[in-house]
């Protein structure tokens, strides 16, 4: 953690963001997510919630138009390419790179500034230990259960040292038993690291567990 996010600007600010598709307005949102806070966006499919995540992460499709600004800890990201935004993304499915081992997935995420092959490997292995997957480094991602894959995906996202997290229904592919465990784990780590989190979901339980502000989108 290089910054101290405890001043006025700390957090992820969605500054009068509006999204429109072919001239038709989809959503308007104006909100500050403080470090360690989870803002939940609820809405049916087609309500534009995925497009909001795309806009914040820098992936908005050219047929959408958007206005407003994205400000992270006082830094305006709106015009920055996605690589420079330092925003971590988790998808509906874990999307571990299938041609790499579990450890390679993590090593690929670790910034190049972290030097030394041995040191890098230790960091990746420690990350696996943090989520109870000690010794899984050499495994083929496809041999892991859904919950295990999601845990690796979480650590992959965190190893890239993001300053905020975007979660696109990351628990929806898990069965009910696993879902609450993994959810607790993700939220716990996000709070520990004081990351502002934007969670998109249509599961009421997700919103309740996030224990933060809820923003509901209508179609």
């Amino acid at each position, binding site marked *: 953690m290089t910054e101290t996010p405890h001043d006025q600007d700390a957090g992820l600010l969605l500054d009068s963001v509006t999204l429109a598709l072919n001239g038709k307005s989809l959503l308007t949102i104006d909100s500050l997510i403080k470090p360690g806070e989870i803002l939940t966006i609820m809405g049916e499919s087609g309500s534009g919630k995925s497009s909001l995540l795309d806009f914040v992460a820098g*992936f908005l499709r050219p047929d959408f138009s958007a206005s407003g600004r994205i400000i992270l800890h006082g830094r305006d990201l709106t015009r920055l390419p*996605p690589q420079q935004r330092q925003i971590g993304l988790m998808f509906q*499915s874990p999307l571990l790179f299938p*041609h790499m081992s579990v450890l390679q997935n993590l090593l*690929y*995420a670790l910034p190049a500034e972290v030097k030394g092959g041995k040191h890098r490997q230790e960091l990746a292995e420690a990350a696996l230990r943090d989520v109870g997957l000690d010794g899984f480094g050499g495994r*083929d991602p*496809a041999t892991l259960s859904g919950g295990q894959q999601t845990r690796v995906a979480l650590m*992959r996202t965190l190893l890239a040292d993001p300053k905020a997290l975007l979660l696109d229904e990351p628990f929806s592919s898990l069965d009910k038993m696993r879902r609450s465990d993994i959810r607790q784990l993700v939220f716990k780590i996000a709070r520990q690291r004081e990351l502002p989190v934007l969670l998109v979901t249509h599961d009421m339980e997700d919103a309740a567990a996030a224990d933060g502000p809820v923003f509901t989108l209508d179609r």
Partner: protein
Amino acid sequence: MKLPGVSAAVLTVLLAGPVATGLAATVLPAFGYLPVLGSSSFTAAPFTDLLQEPGFAASLFLSFSTGLGATLVSLALVIWFTASWYRTRTFQRVTRFLSPILSVPHAAAAIGISFLIAPSGFLVRLVSPWATGWDRPPDVLILNDPMGLAMTGGLIAKEVPFLFLMMLAALNRPYLGDYMKAGESLGYGKTAAFLHLILPQLYPLLRLPILAVLAYATSVVDVALLLGPTTPAPLAPRLVVWMNDPDLTKRLMASAGALVQIALTGLAILTYLLIELVVRKRHKAFLESGRRNRSDRFVRVSGLTLMSGLITVTTASLLLLVIWSMAKSWWFPAALPQRWDLGLIGSALSMNQAALGYTISLGLAAAFISTVLTLWHLEASSRDPKTRLLSFLVFLPLVLPQIGFLFGLKMLFLAIGWDGTAFAVLLAHLVFVLPYAILALTDPYTRLDPRYEKAAIALGKSRLSVFLNIKAPLLLKPILTTFAVALAVSVGQYLPTLMIGAGRVVTITTESVALASGGNRQITALFALLQLLVPLAGFLVAMTLPRLLFRKRIAMSGAR
């Protein structure tokens, strides 16, 4: 600098440049204008000369009938078989047999077929002399028959695998199985359900490949030389003869003939579209009649019989190439060689190292350039969709008869001193290799889950890192397959190599066609075999390398 524009521009120059300049340099001499040869006045004489050539009308008719006939029969067979066996095990088995045949160059297949059906060929040998009483080859025109039946057959043997693979690619879309179920639960027979519900959805995707087949078949040279009639020959091979005639007025006539060839191919395409219109009308009536055609057993069995027959003939032809290349003496009417000799393979190879060298180096260069350019362009246009290539441009070299612009291109290269250089041949190959590379790679590339790229970019990785570490490995199999397809297309090029190579750049394909008229069957077979071994090696690498690299990655099995 905007990269997307650059990749599109490079491709446009490589594809349209030779076609446009070649066409222009064909049109001018066709009307008597060829300053290099001392004629600079416009005249219609080349066309009137053409009309006075003996058997000219017969040549036109042959090109038209063999080309259109081969296309219609191939298409009918592919639709017939697919409609009646889609979603069965038999269908998958046939797929396994037909796919490798696609990599066999036309010339090699034609040589194999000639060994099978010639009066001294394997089939006659099998039944001689015990059934026929022949102890010497019968004097009948089976090969080079005046109607062009053998030639049509040779074309069908190659175009069926091509159209079938295009059909397979088109079938690779979601929900088709559900449509079949819906049709069958309404009481329609399997074949009828396919024809009514699936085929109309796929046909738009098949149309351009069909037109490409038609353009190729109406203007083919190598297959016509090997299997086609000679008195007179179809138009395209006669044009090549005139083009190489020392009498310079014949060259002007050849240019005029190239324009006639373009018109003829155009007419064949028009005729096809007319037939398509009629069939559509009939099909509409058939569809609305509500006839269920539940008992389609006869249709299915006959479709399978025809398809297995075609596979058997092609496989037997290719096996004959193997046997002949090892036969020292094989006198009629013995069904198998009397004496075998493997030694000749080595000596024939060492004598023709240049041809093999050119084949491999031209093939690798064309495959490498076209695969890299295609990847570059796909990557660039995925970022800026406005710079997509016109599909018209990609298909132009495929739906235009090769001979229509190769003449002009040759004269242009002559004028600037490039004629007969490997570089010029490479440029000519690229015109035909690039479209296939683009066709082969575009679909898998756009089908890759875009979220892998997003996930990597969100980790802070540069575009280059994402391409090299994520996209390229995930697409390794289609990339290698594209490379192999491109290699196979380059190896199969006969006319571009012959015309632009001018006898100085020769490949195993031009050599094997030349050898076939010489009568030494062993060496001919060997060269035909080499024609198919080079592409085969490419496909083998494309199949095994991803499997080897990702053997521990279960989820990569789709890519293995």
